[in-house]
């Protein structure tokens, strides 16, 4: 492995997108959660919903800010580090990103101002409308970026132009490419579950500390409902996504399953240590034949292993294999906690089961881990291509010296380290404190005059 501009650019992209995706994954779900809370409050007039809204909106403001600034980086990085990719694919996926800016970014950013600072300036109806616009904006944004990314996984509706760039022959085929439906569903549900796990963890923590009991009980029920209902759907969406990948990206599926040989009745490898030199898994524990069943293949269907692909056409196996297992593991955690919660709810023990609350606190970050490892599975599994089967990552990099990329990467690590640590600290501090309740009138520890403190005081 050579520390050239290519490897450094890949590391930088992985680092910056990995950092970035944490925040959208959280805020997509949180924006919808806030819209539901505000709607319930307007409808029922119960103060618990208002208190919950005012609590979670502070966490939303912190997370959204970090999402915005790390997102601006992404819109320039295509050009700075992947200029060849940009020049070749610009006519195909450029419009998708332009539509993301036009339909989503402005909507989110503009109505966020009213959502955070507009309590006294607009009526409750208009404020609710603003929250909904922010929530819808996050979903539009997810759609367009998933469309662009899915096209890179399963490209269609394009042709080579004379100057060696790609042009779209049919934009409907580009936008609605084969992997978009399952991947968009998988990502949005992942965002909802990520938020549900954080809300559940924070509410369970408050219940353990006997704080804001009414609010925490309501929020816990909302989170458990989401977990119990959505996790099974999410598992089906993930399964569908895997089936589509099997059709279009067999090397990715072979790598994430840990299949080295092409055969019928592929196994499901539970754990193992993929060895790319020896082309085998060490210490493998597998269920024979079950892999074919999971991949919707009959007992006589031959499924490709990595031996179908020359070494330079294979994705990094170890990382894809393990990222996939961690993701699935987190899904199982959510499934178990969802069923456990639904059971406790049915037995009226949801508020008193301290063991369940402790488990939820521990599982608070499980959504983030699942999102990150899921993205590693999808993106590392796509290697060595940036546009699958068409454009290799190695051929897409900018003509910049390694020194420049090393400098920017180093600064990114330092800056993101500082920003992330501070942001996480402030969010955890807020969570440890819990929502302000009616019994103790809203007292902010922020200096008087901060817009948010003022907004909280003015909230009707």
């Amino acid at each position: 492995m050579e520390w050239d501009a290519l490897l450094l650019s890949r590391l930088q992209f992985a680092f910056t997108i990995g950092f970035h995706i944490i925040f959208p994954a959280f805020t997509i779900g949180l924006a919808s959660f806030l819209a539901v809370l505000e709607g319930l409050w307007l409808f029922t007039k119960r103060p618990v919903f208002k208190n919950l809204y005012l609590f979670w909106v502070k966490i939303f403001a912190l997370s959204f800010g970090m999402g915005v600034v790390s997102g601006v980086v992404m819109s320039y990085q295509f050009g700075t580090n992947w200029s060849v990719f940009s020049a070749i694919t610009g006519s195909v996926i450029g419009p998708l990103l332009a539509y993301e800016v036009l339909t989503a970014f402005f909507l989110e950013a503009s109505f966020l101002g009213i959502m955070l600072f507009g309590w006294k300036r607009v009526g409750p109806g208009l404020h609710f409308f603003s929250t909904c616009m922010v929530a819808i904006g996050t979903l539009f944004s997810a759609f367009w970026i998933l469309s662009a990314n899915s096209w890179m996984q399963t490209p269609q509706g394009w042709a080579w132009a004379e100057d060696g760039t790609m042009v779209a022959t049919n934009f409907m085929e580009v936008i609605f490419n084969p992997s978009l439906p399952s991947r968009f569903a998988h990502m949005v549900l992942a965002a909802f579950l990520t938020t549900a796990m954080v809300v559940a963890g924070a509410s369970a923590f408050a219940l353990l500390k006997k704080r804001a009991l009414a609010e925490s009980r309501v929020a816990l029920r909302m989170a458990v409902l989401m977990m119990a209902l959505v996790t099974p759907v999410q598992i089906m969406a993930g399964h569908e996504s895997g089936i589509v990948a099997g059709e279009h990206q067999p090397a990715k599926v072979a790598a994430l399953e840990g299949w080295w040989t092409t055969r019928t009745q592929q196994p499901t490898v539970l754990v193992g240590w993929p060895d790319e030199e020896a082309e085998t898994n060490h210490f493998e524990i597998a269920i024979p034949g079950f892999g074919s069943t999971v991949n919707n293949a009959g007992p006589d269907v031959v499924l490709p292993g990595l031996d179908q692909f020359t070494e330079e056409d294979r994705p990094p196996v170890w990382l894809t294999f393990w990222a996939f297992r961690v993701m699935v593991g987190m899904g199982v955690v959510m499934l178990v906690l969802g069923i456990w919660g639904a059971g406790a709810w049915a037995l009226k023990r949801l508020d008193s089961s301290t063991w369940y609350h402790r488990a939820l606190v521990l599982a608070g970050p499980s959504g983030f881990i699942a999102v990150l490892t899921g993205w590693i599975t999808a993106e590392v599994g796509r290697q060595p291509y940036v546009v699958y089967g068409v454009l290799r990552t190695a051929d897409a990099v900018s003509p910049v010296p390694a020194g420049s990329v090393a400098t920017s990467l180093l600064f990114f690590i330092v800056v993101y380290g500082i920003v992330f640590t501070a942001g996480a600290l402030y969010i955890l501090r807020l969570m440890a404190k819990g929502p302000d309740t009616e019994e103790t009138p809203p007292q902010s520890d922020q200096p008087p005059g901060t817009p948010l403190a003022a907004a909280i005081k003015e909230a009707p």
Partner: protein
Amino acid sequence: MFGIELSMIWAVLIAVAVFLYVALDGFDLGVGILFPFAKDARERDQMQASIAPVWDGNETWLVLGGGGLFAAFPKAYAALMPALYLPIFLMLLALIFRGVAFEFRHHGRERGKKWWTFAFSAGSIVATIAQGLVLGGFIQGVAIEGEVFVGGPLDWLTPFSLLVAASLVAGYALLGAAWIVFKAQGELAERARRWVKQLALLTALAMGAVSLATLGVDARVTERWGLTMTSVDWPVFIKLAPLPVLAGVILFLMWRGIEERKFLRPYLYAVCLFLIGYVGLAVSLWPYIIPFAMTPADAAAADNALQLMLVGALVMLPIILAYTAFVYWTFRAKVDDHATYH
């Protein structure tokens, strides 16, 4: 034929997006640049509160500028970004500090708050300097062979780009000061008036210096304006002379009218000043999208991509402008009114 028209439409659209960015985020960054000159924490809170509800929307124009360049002119984007790699990243990193500081300042305790106050201000200053370096590096042109950047990593670093960077700091500070005149009351507003007067002079000097220096960038610019160090080609220059004359008039009006109770006017004058500079630059660099190397037609995406995006832009931009105006209207009051101070 139609392709050339489409690429021109998109060049104009992106130029408008970049100008809106400069006019809007310019005052945000300007407020950050002026942070060290605030009297106390209360004034800094007021200054930040004057931009907190709108900064995010303002910065989105930068994303449209970058994203739009990628989508409409992929070859220009692919050639420019590697050429300006380091100042672009300097800008992005600075914008990160500036952006998170809005919220972080209010969550930090003693030391944290001090640090994020510093980060907000330093982030604003460095982001402005970096944007100036990008602009300077862009104006002086980048080394391109066969649509690909072939220069070195520090090509952008010249006395010219440093001059542009320093000028942009003065210009954004002027926008910021004028915005504070619009949004603040009492002592802070009075101080902001003095800032506007001082910064107007500084910006005028800077614009003059950058204009003269731009003449030296390329013979084509000299020819366009009919100006050389030793001679003036009057028939050519007279057609463009209204630009500097107008800039002078606006400066005079801003200087004289600053004491009047027309609070938004200084900001609008400052935007006009930027607009004149911007038009002057467009005149100098016409018809290139990368100066002296690539025209919009050379760099444009395929026609069907440009058409699809044009439909989106024609539908969405009026809506975006409408709700942006609504947000500004919602927060039109002086800062004291909506942030309660004790």
